[in-house]
């Protein structure tokens, strides 16, 4: 069992790392799709099928499209697509910060005596999820709905804002 897990992990990590290292934004987006797919695979391995499909739908389907749109809408020339890191110092600082956090997390995980739960894989049906969502977690569901609505409105406003004023007649 663990072998599959390790393989999925390595693949996901590799694609994520390369995605963020590439100067070409389109390459980054596409590689990130691969890593998200990897995460969905992990969800499937863990037995959370609903989440796996939700992951694929939302991230691979929607978010990646939004990212691609954003990339394409914000380029001026071919040169813009290749944007490298600012400086070596910045890269070093980033690696330092990331390394520190990783070290701390790893230490915490390893040092804690964790026991895997006995028993086989769990599963939860969609029906159960539905009942849970609309039952005890109804308020949270409504709140999330509200967040999504507001985020939609906000995004539309932000992205569309400037076009209201009439353009000055050009001489």
């Amino acid at each position, binding site marked *: 069992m663990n072998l599959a897990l390790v393989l999925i992990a390595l693949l996901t990590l590799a694609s994520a790392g390369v995605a963020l290292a590439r100067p070409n934004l389109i390459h980054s987006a596409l590689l990130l799709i691969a890593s998200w797919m990897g995460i969905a695979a992990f969800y499937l391995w863990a037995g959370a099928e609903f989440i796996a499909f939700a992951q694929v739908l939302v991230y691979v389907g929607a978010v990646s499209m939004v990212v691609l749109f954003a990339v394409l809408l914000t380029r001026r020339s071919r040169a813009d697509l290749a944007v490298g890191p600012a400086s070596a110092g*910045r890269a070093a*600082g*980033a690696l*330092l*910060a*990331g390394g*520190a*956090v990783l*070290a*701390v*997390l790893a*230490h*915490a995980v390893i*040092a804690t005596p964790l026991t895997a739960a006995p028993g086989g894989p769990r599963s939860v049906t969609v029906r159960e999820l539905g009942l849970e969502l609309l039952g005890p977690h109804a308020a949270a569901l409504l709140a999330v709905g509200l967040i999504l609505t507001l985020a939609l409105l906000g995004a539309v406003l932000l992205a569309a804002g400037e076009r209201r004023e009439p353009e000055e007649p050009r001489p």
Partner: protein
Amino acid sequence: MHLSVAHLWLIPALPLAAAGVGAFLPRRARALAAGLAIGAMALAFVLACGALAGALAHPAEHAVANFAWFDFGPATLRLGWLLDPLTGFMLVMVTLVALLIFIYSTGYLKTDANFARFFCFLSLFAAGMLGLLAANSLLLLFVGWELVGVSSYLLIGFWFQRPAAAAAAKKAFITTRIGDLGFLLGLLWLYDATGSLLFYDGGHGVLEASVLGSLAAHATMGGLALSTAIGLLIFCGAVGKSGQFPLHVWLPDAMEGPTPVSALIHAATMVAAGVFLIARIYPLMAADLAVAGAPVHALTVVAAIGAITALLGALVATAQTDLKRVLAYSTVSQLGYMMLALGVGSWTAAIFHLLTHACFKALLFLGAGSVIHAAHHEQDIRRLGGLAGRQRVTFATFAVGMMALSGVPFLFSGFWSKEGILHAAEGWDVSRLPLYAGLAAVALTAFYMTRLTAEVFGGRPRTDAAAHAHENSAVMTVPLVILAIGAVVLGFWGTPAWPWLQSRLRGESAVLGVSWWDGAALMALSVGLVALGGVAGWALYGRKARTDCRAPDPVEAAAPRVYAALASGLGCDAFYAATFLRLNRLAAAAADFLERWVWGGAIWVVAGLGRWVGRADRRADEAGLNAGFNAASAGLRSAGRRYSRAQTGDAHGYLRAMAIAFAVLALLGILGGSH
């Protein structure tokens, strides 16, 4: 028409009302002011005659009208009015003389701008004097006493723009004040000892037998009887007011006032108040004569001072060159005579002399005023002369007055009153010295009065002022004539053969005269002395009349040092200036030093301290508080600026910081948790 004692208060009230109204009159209401004063005084004179008639109807009775003034706790302060022959005679004399002098003043001060003010003050004086005379309470008498004192000050300094007049007024007031202090102490002691200040109060009055007996019996400090001590203290007031030695120095200087003032106040009435006071409280003064073994009798002191004053005044008068100063020293001498009479035991002789003196001294002063007015205010007798032909009425009346004062025998009142005094002095068994002093003064009086008359009226006019003098208007000469008549006639009411005045004063209804031969030797002696003085004066000043203003006096030429000593008042003023005045000036300088440097210094130090504290406070505030707050604010601002530098605006930086901070915190948590 008799005036009863219940209405006696009207007599002082009328001039007081005139003074009250007169105080509010404007300067140009001259006729109204004079009319008010003269009218009030005339009415008062009529009432006084009625009062005298009432008193003479019952001469032995002391009619009183007592009333309560205010009460404080258990005791009540009572005042009252008294009517007896003494009061009656004095009231008539004062109102008559005052009336004549008021009329005279309308002429004398015709050209003065402050005419109305003069009459207001004169009325105030009259009110005080009359109140003093009619009082049955020592306190009421003291009130009148002070009123006449203040009026005297106001009138001496009437021409206050002249520094000499202002100084003289101050001197008069302060000198009499010294005497008044003794008076007040005596008054307070009397009240403390007896609980009453009324003279006659149905047996409980201070001058009545029961109270006097207890006062005489008590001995106080030094073995003195209580009545002696109180009497001597009250006598201090008389010494001041009547110009006795040693408080006589104010009287000659008081001549700075207008001549009517000198006539009224400093000759006839106010200065006589002291004599009147002693006559009034005579029972108190004489109470210690009954006590055996008393170390000092009050009346002995009175007699001694009177004798000294009589001789002193007469000696100094012989060397004066100012017309009014001669008369002033003469007044001092005559007042000494009156005190002498009181001291040797005959208060009736003193009052008789007081009444006659009032008449002829007022006459002499008014005559002098007539001369001064005519000679355009020339007062130096060396610069006058030859006025006999130019001012006949004045000369005639002045001569009458001069003869009355000198004691020219038989025809003139002064002779009879002075005889009474000398006779009483002869009969005093304590000492003959007052008699000798009195006799010496008789000769000197005749001498200086002859000198005065000869220098002023005799010979030829020595200056233009004298040459151009002419007789004054009737308003000034008629009072002279009336007073001259009085100076002659008044004497016949008190001759030894028919002492009507004296018996009525003593309260006797019958008049017992003594025969002519009694006391004839003394009479002959005094006549001889008068003749001696008169002849000497005539020889030196009349026969060879002075021709040059600056020529020295014959006496001065003969004995210059004696003359100089006499002219300076025998050094009394100089002595006072060297001692008391110098002491006063030292005290004033010390007080000034204290005020300026000690108290002022202390205040300056405290103020400086306050200023220093203020400055320090400000400096502390600015440097400490403000600077502190400024520094704190600056610190806060700089800290804020420093902290805001953390807001780089760089999103990457924020994220990096968060990540590293998380790592550090987690590390700390791990490390801490592992312990």
